[in-house]
Structures are given as C-alpha cells and as structure tokens.
C-alpha cells in the first residue's frame, strides 16, 4: 500500500500540465503518504507492535521485479550512451548479470519478503512525514525556482513524478526483508537520484549525476555480489539470515553498499556534487531519506559487525569521514555545500556507531538518524527559500539576515541549534556515542569524535553568528517564500522542538524497542534523571534568552554607533576610507581556506579512506575464503 500510493501519484503527475492541478495533486499525494503512514502506525500498534511478515509466495512479483531490473539497466545504458559515459554501462550490466545468474542457479527457500518491525516503522515515519512535507514544500519552491532560473527547461511534472516514485522506493526498501527485493528498490533510488541530480541538464549537473550514478552502482554491484554469495553459501537471501549467520563476505559487501549510499569517504563526492539539483531533491535525497537508506542497512547489519574486521572497517571509515568532512565544511561559504558536508560528517558518526555494533552505539545511531533527518531537511528547505528570496545561497550574503528575513532566520536558527547545541538531541547522541566508543576501547574513534566535535562547532557557530549580526542595510529584501513552504518548515521546526522536549519519552518508547528487536535485550543507556535534566536544560536554552529579553526590554539605553575608530559615516554601514571617501563596511567570516580547504584536504582523505577500504576488504574477503 505504502509503496503503491506514491507510485500511483508518480504515474499520474506527468499527465497534468496545468501547474495548479499539478500542485493540488502533489498536495493530495503528500497528504496521502502521511495519512497512510499514520494509519499504518496505528494499525501496527493495535496489532501489538510486533514484527509483521508478509508476502511469502511472490512468484509474479519476483518476475516483475526482474523485468524492472532489466528496464533500469536499459535506461542506464541508454543514458550512458547518450552522454558518452561508457564505463557506467559495465557496472550496470555486471550487477544485473550477477543477480540474474544467482537467481537462476541458486534457488532459495521461500520466505517472507516484507517484514515490518519497529525499525521499519520508524523509517516509514521519517520517510513518510519528512518526505511528504518536502513534497509539499516543493510545490511552492519549484514555481519560484523556475521564476528565477528561466534558462532551464521546466520539467516540474517529471520532477514531482520522480519525488513520489522515490518515496515509494524508499518505503519498499525499508520494508523489504528479502535482499533481492531490497536490491531492486535500492537500484531505483540510485537511478532516481541520478535523474534528479541531472534535472537542470547543464554540463555540471550531468557530470555530477554520472558521478553519483557510478558510485552508487559500485555499491549496487557489491550488493548484487553479496546476494549471489549469500545464496550460494548459506542458501538464503533473507537479511535476517545473513545477520544471524554472520556470513562474512556478504556482510562486508553489503556494508560497502551502505558506505557508498551514505556517501562516506571515499565516496563523498557524489553527495557534494548532488547539490546542483533543486533544493527539494537535495533535501529529500541527500539529507533526509536516501542517504539514510545506507545508514539503515548498516544499522540492520550491525549485530553481524560487532567486534570483527568488517565492523572495524565501517567504524574507522565512519569516524574518519566525520572529522574530515567537518573540517572541510569550515572552508565552505556556499550554504548548501556546508549542509552537504555536515550531512556527510553526521552520517559518518552514525556509520561509526553502527560499525561498533554495541547496544549503546545503535541507540545513539538511531537517535542521530531521527534528529538529523528532521533538522537537516528543515535546514535545506530554509536555505532553499533564502536562496529564492536573496538570489544567493552564499553565507556571506546572509549577513544580518535576522533583520531582513526574520521568519526564515528563526527556522535556520532552530535547525542549527538542533544540529550541535548542548541540550538538543544531536548532542546527547554524541555524548552516548562518546561513552560507547570509550567502552569499546577504540581510542581512534574517541579522538575523531573529540576533534570532530570541535570543528563541527566552528562551522555552525560562525554561520549562526552571521545570521544574528544586526546589520541594517538599505537594500530591501522581498520574502518570496510561499505559504506551503512555510507550512512545511513550521511543522519541521515544531517537530524538532517537540522531539527534543519529549526526548526521554522518545528514548523509551521508540528507540528501546528497536534495540530490543536487534539485540534481544535492552537496558537504559542513559538514566531517566539525566534525560529529564536534558529536557529541563532545553527549556532553559529556549526560555532564558526570552526571559532576559523581557527583563532587559524596559531598561533605558542610550544608542550610539558601533566603534570603527571614530570614522563612521553617520551610521553603522559606511566608514571613511584612507582616500577620505565613504566605503561600505563588509565583514567576512573566517574560512581558514588554506588550512581546511577542500583542495587541500579532499585528495589526501579520499586516498586514505580508499586505502583503508581496499586493504580491509581484501583482508576480510581473503580471510573468509
């Protein structure tokens, strides 16, 4: 059902050429997705919140999927030939061939293809609500986008169709228990992200989309080989069996697929390149949902990775990505790039947690996933709206945004605070992760986390400071953000605050059952009193400044200009330069480009990460064979 509805909408959307009806259809589709998810949740809870397994016998669907698989392969081949990117074809053909060969030579026992447990339910909620809201946001955004960018052909219908198709695929992916099914949905998300990145059809967009494609296909190849090996060795392509059996090679290859999907180093560049796409797709694919597919897979695999080589590989790569990406984020002044790097970096942390595979780390990983999805999607939407209003997404241009676009700035502020400030969710998860890393005795990860938090702090703080600078400019900015965009962002902001406020509740009712399911046991990771303290702290972070505001509002102040050596030109925006002429005051942030620039750090970190990855993979596979 959940898969079908978005797909239906996706099929319908391109037939409506009138923007208005298309918008309404998108609203209906998004609301439908959310309503279905909610119904699903209620039904599932009423059935006792236990794992539900469905579709044991699915001969027909399997064949349909195979056909779909072949269709995807043909699509990729056609696109590759059109754009003269031939190596991609090899990857695509290879994995499809491996899969088909495996299906015909190693028959596996029939088993449930769909399994719905708490983890799946959580992912349903994230995908359904965050994704649905993004679709609502996209209706308003795409109008403004094409209003600004007249140079691109308007393919909004296609865009929406892809968005909904993507939601359907995501739903299918998280619900699949059978690896072949999961693989099918996995491939769909890869191809859709490829199509969405290439939306504008500029040369840059096409190049970036192909980079995304080949990296994801590499992961897909790993996935396909993992399926074949699993079918050949343990005679089953159920995810559960693979995890329980701790089949070394399939787990390692699946982990590789997870790493590519969640854009870990050395595969980070596809996500960074993906920022050329319109913002809703960046928000949907690259922060809230698609990259979460990789993380989801790794969390599922985590019991099989606890304490072995694969786990070490995954956690090392994750930890390294966390610190390297957060360092590179410092040197970025493009708002979306910073968000992209921060996504990569936070995913790194989640991946590291999953790689350790202990109860506490998974606890932290799940919470990080929840908070990251909501706040990052909100930030992407806010940056997209700011870009539409301001005509730029350069952080330097956001100086004093508080006075120019106050509503968007508050939303940004909540998002940024949610990403790193003390009592908000992300930080608590970081705290738990730190403790778990210490318990796991992994000094390297502890160091990565300690230094990475420091660099994370820097790039968020300087962005926040840029926003709150009270700089009065004479340039008026028109807020062109539409109501539906605001609606989506307000709901996100409210969600964020509620999630933080009801953190103890969230931890006990959502996360603990998932831990139960994965590990069979569950104990309090953080004591209730600590969690309650956090909630109280959060209240104070929100209310202290407001209280102080009320207290200080009545005090009488004598306003004077800022200090510029006494040479202000009457106000705070101009000063007299050494020629005696007025000059506009321009305050730049720190970017530390020479020390933390992408040019300096990207290559060494990609090299280091690939080295680790290749060597460890060889060791794992060699050791297993």
């Amino acid at each position, binding site marked *: 059902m959940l898969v079908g509805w978005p797909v239906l909408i996706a099929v319908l959307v391109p037939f409506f050429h009138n923007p208005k009806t298309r918008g309404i259809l998108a609203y209906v589709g998004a609301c439908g997705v959310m309503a279905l998810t909610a119904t699903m949740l209620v039904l599932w809870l009423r059935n006792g919140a236990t794992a539900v397994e469905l579709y044991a016998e699915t001969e027909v669907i399997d064949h349909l999927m195979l056909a779909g698989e072949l269709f995807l392969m043909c699509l990729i081949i056609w696109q590759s030939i059109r754009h003269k990117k031939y190596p991609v074809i090899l990857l695509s053909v290879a994995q499809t061939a491996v899969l088909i060969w495996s299906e015909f030579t190693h028959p596996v026992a029939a088993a449930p293809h769909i399994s719905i447990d708490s983890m799946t339910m959580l992912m349903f909620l994230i995908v359904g609500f965050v994704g649905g809201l993004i679709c609502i946001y996209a209706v308003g955004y795409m109008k403004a986008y094409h209003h600004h960018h007249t140079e691109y052909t308007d393919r909004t219908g296609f865009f929406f169709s892809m968005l909904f198709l993507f939601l359907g695929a995501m739903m299918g992916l998280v619900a699949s228990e059978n690896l072949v099914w999961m693989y099918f949905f996995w491939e769909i998300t890869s191809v859709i992200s490829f199509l969405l990145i290439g939306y504008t059809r500029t040369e840059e967009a096409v190049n970036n989309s192909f980079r995304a494609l080949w990296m994801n296909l590499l992961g897909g190849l790993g996935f396909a080989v993992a399926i074949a090996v699993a079918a050949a060795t343990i005679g089953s392509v159920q995810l559960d069996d693979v995890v329980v059996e701790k089949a070394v090679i399939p787990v390692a290859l699946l982990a590789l697929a997870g790493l590519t999907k969640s854009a870990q180093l050395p595969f980070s560049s596809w996500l960074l390149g993906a920022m050329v796409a319109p913002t809703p797709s960046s928000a949907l694919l690259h922060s809230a949902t698609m990259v979460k597919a990789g993380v989801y897979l790794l969390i599922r695999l985590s019991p099989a990775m606890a304490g072995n080589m694969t786990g070490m590989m995954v956690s090392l790569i994750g930890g390294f990505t966390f610190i390297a990406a957060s360092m590179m984020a410092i040197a970025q002044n493009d708002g979306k790039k910073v968000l992209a790097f921060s996504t990569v970096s936070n995913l790194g942390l989640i991946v590291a947690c999953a790689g350790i595979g202990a109860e506490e780390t998974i606890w932290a990983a799940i919470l990080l996933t929840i908070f990251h999805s909501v706040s990052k999607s909100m930030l992407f939407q806010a940056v997209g709206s700011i870009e539409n209003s301001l005509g730029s997404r350069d952080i330097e241009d956001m100086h004093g945004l508080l006075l120019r676009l106050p509503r968007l700035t508050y939303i940004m502020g909540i998002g940024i605070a949610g990403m790193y400030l003390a009592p908000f969710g992300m930080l608590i998860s970081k705290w738990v992760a730190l403790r778990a890393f210490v318990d796991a005795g992994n000094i390297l990860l502890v160091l990565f986390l300690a230094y990475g938090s420091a660099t994370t702090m820097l790039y968020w703080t300087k962005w926040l400071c840029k926003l709150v600078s009270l700089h009065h400019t004479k340039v008026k900015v028109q807020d062109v953000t539409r109501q539906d965009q605001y609606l989506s962002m307000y709901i996100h902001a409210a969600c964020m605050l509620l999630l933080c406020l009801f953190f103890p509740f969230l931890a006990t009712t959502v996360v603990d059952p998932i831990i139960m399911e994965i590990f069979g046991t569950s104990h309090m990771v953080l004591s209730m009193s600590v969690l309650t303290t956090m909630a109280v702290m959060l209240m104070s972070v929100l209310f202290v400044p407001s209280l102080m505001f009320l207290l200080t509002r009545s005090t009488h102040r004598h306003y004077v200009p800022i*200090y510029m050596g*006494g*040479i202000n030109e009457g106000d705070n925006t101009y000063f007299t330069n050494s020629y005696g002429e007025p000059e506009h005051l321009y305050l730049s942030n720190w970017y530390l480009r020479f020390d933390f620039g992408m040019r300096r750090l990207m290559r060494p970190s990609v090299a280091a990460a690939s080295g680790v990855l290749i060597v460890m993979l060889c060791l794992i596979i060699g050791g297993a064979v």
Partner: protein
Amino acid sequence: MAKLAKSPWLLHYDASSCNGCDIEVLDCTTPRFDIERFGIINTGDPFQADILLITGGVNAQCESVVKQIYSQMPDPKVVVAVGICACTGGVFKDCYNIKGGVDTVIPVDVYVPGCAARPQSIIDGVVKALEILQQKRDAFARSQKSDKS
C-alpha cells in the same frame, strides 16, 4: 576619595599631536610611574572609558572623530587635554588646518600644560579629573534617581 573614583579607565586619543605628549602618556604606564596604582587602566575603547585623554590641537580631519568617540563614551565622563597644543593649539595655533585647542570641539574639564607635558603633571591632571568625575557621578546618580521617580 570615594570608592567609585577608584576605577578610572582611560582612553588616549592623539588629535594630530607631534607624539611628544603621547610618549609621555605611555610613560605613565611604565614601572617608574605606574598609574595602575590608582586603578587606572588604559583601555583604548571609548565604550569602556571614563576619562578621555587627548593630545594635540585638533585638526579639520580628526574633528569629527573626536566628537564621535566622545559621544560613544558612557556618562559620567571627563576630558583631560594633555599638552599645550591640546590646551590652546600651542605653536600650531595659527596653522590653516588646526582648530586650536580641544575645547573648540568638545567640553574640556582639566588642562595639563607643557611641551611635552611631564608624566608627573599628567598624573596630577588625571587625579584632578577624578574629583570632577566624582562630582559628575553624583550628579548623574541624582539625575538617574529623578528619572525613575
């Protein structure tokens, strides 16, 4: 001396002086004279200063600057003109660009003559300024009170 006058912070501004007096002002902070004995700190920031120590006869270019930094100092505040140029314009009085004395631009409370003014007399001038500061403070406190009532 009342407690409040024990913490006067200085702002030193050079309004086109020949730097003779400025050297002497800096001399006051050295171990030999050590104005920190009186709790005096050279802040260099008008927002935190109580005493504006100004040298040189103000010229056309820095007139607005003097006015501006004076306006940025919070009440109560006093101005000490250090050196003969700051007092009257000195030998530069008749120059085309010299206003002639700080008091042509902002109100001055204490005049410290000399070319260059000796550190002892600068310290003496600052201590004199403290008394005026105290009076202004009392007046300021009274005005604050009457504002509230």
